């Protein structure tokens, strides 16, 4: 029931909104939200804040560009049915590798290590021309055709992103109810105790990172199609921090808050030009992030829940008085 309140308007919106709103606001929010979901998932259930999620999205984005049509003449074109799972698999493998490297690190140590991995990947894409085409990356990364139109047109891409977002949220909710997902949460709470049950801790950590790679990768592929390009700018410090900011705004411990955070972020991005000088967007977003961290460390979604709770309490009290 709760989901329908969100879902029905989401399905109807394309019929009332302009293409600009649909593509630049909603679709973009969904895509950023999916990538941020992969971070919130790790933060909530594994207790690790990973700064490498934009890189995982980038791995899948680069893969879909390398194995598909692009206009830079690099790569091996593969049929859609092969390259899609391959790109997701590569993102999962990349996630598993990061999980393996960071397996013994928690808290701020994990932040430092994943950030170092993310930025190292960024520098690597800039220097490597064989796989990543260096600084400029890939352009002309088009989604497959949809009849005589393209999946990249505003409405199809919106519905595709919405569908992927729903699948990702459902996957997260399913995963955390699975034995492996429970083990991931047990690692978060008391790794030593899990070992004492005879359950290894390394495997759940790696699995959680691989799973986050699958989600981030799904977002990364959509992002490559949305932008029709993928380059070192897609995996730089900017996107790394953007994803973090989105998760923090939505609440790091609220996976679905990622979508709330994404909408707030995108709207700020678009309307900053009216609020202040376009060039000062970073100043604005920095102040917003600081304000959230100081005033609402659990994110906007938790803030809203608290407010609604307080209002209900008051509403419940009034008649009694």
């Amino acid at each position, binding site marked *: 029931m709760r989901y329908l309140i969100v879902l029905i308007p989401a399905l109807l919106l394309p019929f009332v909104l302009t293409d600009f709103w649909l593509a630049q606001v909603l679709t973009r929010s969904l895509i950023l939200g999916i990538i941020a979901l992969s971070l919130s998932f790790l933060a909530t259930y594994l207790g690790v*804040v990973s700064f490498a999620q934009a890189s995982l999205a980038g791995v899948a984005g680069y893969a879909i560009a390398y194995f598909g049509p692009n206009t830079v003449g690099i790569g091996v074109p593969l049929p859609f049915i092969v390259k899609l799972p391959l790109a997701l698999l590569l993102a999962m493998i990349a996630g598993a590798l990061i999980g393996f*490297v960071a397996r013994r690190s928690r808290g701020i140590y994990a932040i*430092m290590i994943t950030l*170092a991995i993310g930025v190292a990947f960024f520098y690597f894409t800039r*220097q*490597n021309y064989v796989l990543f085409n260096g600084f400029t990356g890939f352009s002309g990364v088009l989604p497959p055709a949809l009849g005589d139109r393209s999946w990249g047109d505003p409405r199809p891409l919106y519905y595709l992103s919405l569908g992927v977002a729903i699948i990702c949220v459902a996957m997260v909710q399913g995963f955390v109810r699975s034995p492996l997902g429970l083990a991931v949460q047990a690692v978060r709470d008391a790794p030593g105790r899990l070992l004492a049950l005879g359950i290894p801790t390394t495997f759940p950590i790696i699995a959680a990172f691989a799973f986050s790679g699958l989600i981030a990768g799904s977002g990364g592929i959509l992002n490559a199609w949305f932008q029709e390009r993928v380059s070192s700018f897609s995996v730089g410090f900017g996107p790394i921090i953007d994803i973090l900011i989105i998760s*923090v705004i939505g609440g790091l411990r609220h996976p679905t808050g990622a979508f709330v955070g994404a909408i707030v972020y995108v709207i700020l991005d678009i309307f900053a030009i009216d609020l202040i000088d376009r060039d000062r967007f970073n100043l604005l977003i*920095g102040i917003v992030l600081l304000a959230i961290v*100081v005033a609402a460390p659990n994110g906007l979604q938790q803030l809203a829940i608290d407010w609604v709770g307080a209002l209900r309490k008051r509403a419940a009290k009034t008649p009694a008085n």
Partner: protein
Amino acid sequence: MTLFFVVTLNGLTLAALYFLAASGFSLIFGLMRTVNMAHGALLLLGGYIGWSVADATGLWALGVFAGGLGAAFAGALVQIGVLGWMQGDELRQTLASIAISIILADLMLWIWGGTTYQVRTPDWLSGGMRIEILGIGYAKVRLYLMAFALVVGVALWLFIQKTRIGAVIRAGVDDQDMLRALGYPINRIFVLVFAMGGMLAGMAGVIAGSALSIAPGTDLQFLLSSLVVVIVGGMGSVGGAALGALLIGLAEQYGLAYAPTYAAVVTFVIMVVVLAVRPQGLLGQAEA
């Protein structure tokens, strides 16, 4: 062979800069468990202030001093104004310091623009110097940089190992709560440590602007290098920062000279190998 010597010297130059940048970062992390993500921004801020002062007065040394002082002041302000309120909540501090670094970076872009600056060095630092044993010439400013890093390293080590306040900081690294219980003004010490970390960063910024150059992005470059240096060398140890800086600086330059495509990967591989063998870093204490 000449190439090898030059590359080695370049590596040592970079290592010296990395050490100057990372030592402040490591000090703050070691005492306070705060990952100061604004460290790179403080470094760049120091660099810009140093450039402005040196440009206006023509006095390079004054520029270094002003850059260090400006960044120290900014660092103390960050601790007093924001991070001090969240002491103990490490994740929140990290996120807040990221916000501060974004804000600072944009303010600096506003004030100093997107151009690349090089701090003009005085005559005694300019030009090259012939190193007879190696049979090559090398920029004086870079040789002095290495000497300076060495001096700072030794001074920092003496300060931490041999002085009273150093002993308090060292005890703080191991046991914050005990120190607070013993009645030490730990909050004031925290501000002092932040100011010191900022000063090291600020001076490193001016010196980076003299030996190389500074521009938007320099902040990120040095933040990353500090992270890697500290991860490799070990958290909160001066010797660890020095060893980490040496390894990463040299590896980066050798990589750039002999395997340019994979230079970024070399650093990364070193980090992964160290983490696999010693998660606490080469000279770090194991996590409690």
